[in-house]
């Protein structure tokens, strides 16, 4: 701390120069925030694309499901490839149905419970996939400004120590140090603001998708329950 870096008046004040003149703590904060910003935007892009894809697949599945196609046929086509969204719920339920029914179900209530469980699991897995990494956006949104502020405080502290060392209170001496310190807060805000906005938007979108899938799961559960009521007496009779 004996040789405090003092920004000489008249030095370059471009963003790059400010970054380069900053102390290592401030530099570290700035670089960290930059990476956080990159990661935030990566998540945002990924989620936006993923949600759009999910919405499209839900639309397509609903179209196919309610088209009057036989459920067995649909199950056969879907189980071949890796299903997503409602498809995975449907496949999970059908698989359970098939397993229980082929081996000869004893009680219709037990079968219904198992199918619901399987659908719940599939739904939870889907939601996890949808909402994964949204937490990082929330963290950056709330902590980003603080991290930037930490860099600023450290930068201003260093700047004031430098002023004390140079025994000059000229604004030209004070200004560059404070400007470079404030750059850290600026970067923090730059990372945090999109993160907060995107988190709010994406979590509400995920909520909507989850509601849609839950609705389908309930509907499919009702259909399966009707099927069970119809088929088990026949099985017993046969």
């Amino acid at each position, binding site marked *: 701390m004996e040789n405090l870096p003092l920004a000489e008046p008249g030095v*370059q*004040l*471009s*963003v*790059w*120069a400010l970054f380069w003149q900053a102390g290592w703590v401030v530099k570290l904060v700035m670089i960290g925030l*930059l990476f956080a*910003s*990159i*990661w*935030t*935007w*990566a*998540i*945002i*892009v*990924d*989620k936006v*694309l993923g949600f759009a894809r999910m919405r499209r697949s839900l639309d397509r599945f609903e179209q196919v499901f309610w088209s009057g196609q036989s459920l067995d046929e649909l199950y056969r086509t879907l189980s071949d490839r890796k299903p997503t969204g409602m498809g995975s719920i449907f496949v999970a339920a059908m698989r359970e149905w098939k397993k229980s029914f082929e081996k000869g179900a004893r009680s219709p209530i037990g079968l219904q419970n198992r199918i619901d469980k399987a659908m719940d699991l599939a739904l939870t897995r889907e939601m996890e996939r949808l909402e994964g990494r949204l937490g990082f956006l929330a963290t950056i949104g709330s902590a980003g400004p603080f991290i930037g502020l930490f860099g600023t405080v450290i930068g201003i502290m260093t700047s004031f120590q430098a002023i004390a060392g140079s025994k000059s209170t000229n604004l030209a001496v004070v200004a560059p140090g404070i400007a470079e310190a404030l750059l850290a807060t600026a970067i923090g805000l730059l990372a945090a603001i999109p993160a907060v906005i995107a988190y709010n938007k994406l979590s509400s979108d995920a909520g909507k998708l989850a509601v849609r899938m839950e609705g389908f799961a309930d509907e499919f559960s009702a259909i399966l329950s009707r099927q069970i009521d119809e088929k088990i007496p026949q099985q017993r009779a046969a």
Partner: protein
Amino acid sequence: MKAGLTTSVVLHAAVLGFGLLSLSAPAPLQVADVEALPVDIVPIEEMTQIQQGDKKAPMAETPAPMPTKRPDIVADAQKVGENDIDTDNPPTPADKPRPVKTAEATAPAPKPVEKPKTEDTPKPPEEPKPVPATEVAPVPAPRQEVKPEPVKEPEPKPEPVRQPEPKPAEKPQETAAAEPVKPDAVAEAIAEEQEKPAEQVAQLPDSAPRPEARPRPAPAETAKAPERKTSEKPVREASSRPQSEDTGSIENQVEALLNKEKSKGGGAKRSNQQAALGGERTTGGSKLSQSEMDALRGQVQRCWNIPAGAMDGGNLRVSVKFKLDPSGALEGSPEIISGGGSSGVERAAAEAARRAVARCSPYTLPAEKYEAWADVIVNFDPSEMF
């Protein structure tokens, strides 16, 4: 995820590259050169510490009072002036020679008698005797415009004196009435005029003239009154001035004595320098420092027996004013300038304060600042003692 990450990295690289290029050093703030405003910090001492000089004279290197003419006769005089005695009063301008000199001239009586003759000659040369005229004449020279009036007015009086019979019926009455009275009455009339009752008597006839009273010569007063009435204004003007000369009037005598006292003021210190801007006297501006004040307070406090009932009394504050001589001893008796009200406790507190000042009498204070502690006011506040 890969797609997102690449997109993000590309986006950031683009933004940073754009920022580095466009967000270069901001243009330096253009600040117009403003001429600095000179600001002087003037210590209060410049106002309080002034040198002896003349208030109206132009400023010079060293302030000096107006040069005096008379030789120095008073040693160690403080105030500059032409006076014989050193006084603190400001010099008063010399009075203009108004009635002052006429009053002084009262002693030589014969003189005014002669003067009127020369002035009167143009108008009434016949009468050498007219008493009112002689009295009017000696009015000081500067008032010449006024003089003719009274002189003219008295004239009619003497004229009728000579020809009482030929005049019309109305006038003879007045003149006749005036005539017998005149010799000694004029002076009396003038004297009496000052008395208000006499004036009232004179005014009354205005509304109701009394013809019967005129013929009677016996009551001199009634006769005099009408005379005033006929020429009320002129006579009064004429008489008002003679009054100052009238040796008989006590007021005039007193006035004459008073007038001899020339206005005094200014000091007796002599100056022979060119007048320059300054104050009436040199004020050192010396004041006691906080520690010196505390020292004085401590000395007084040592001798102060706080009155017994003062524990709860916030209003037992007493201010005592006293004078000190250069040795620090009490001069005169301390004076209570505030506090010490009617109630017994308050009076006791005031007396306690006075006793405290008197008991500690020789105070040790910096001698060179005597000016600052010659008059001291000490506030005694018992509530601050607990």
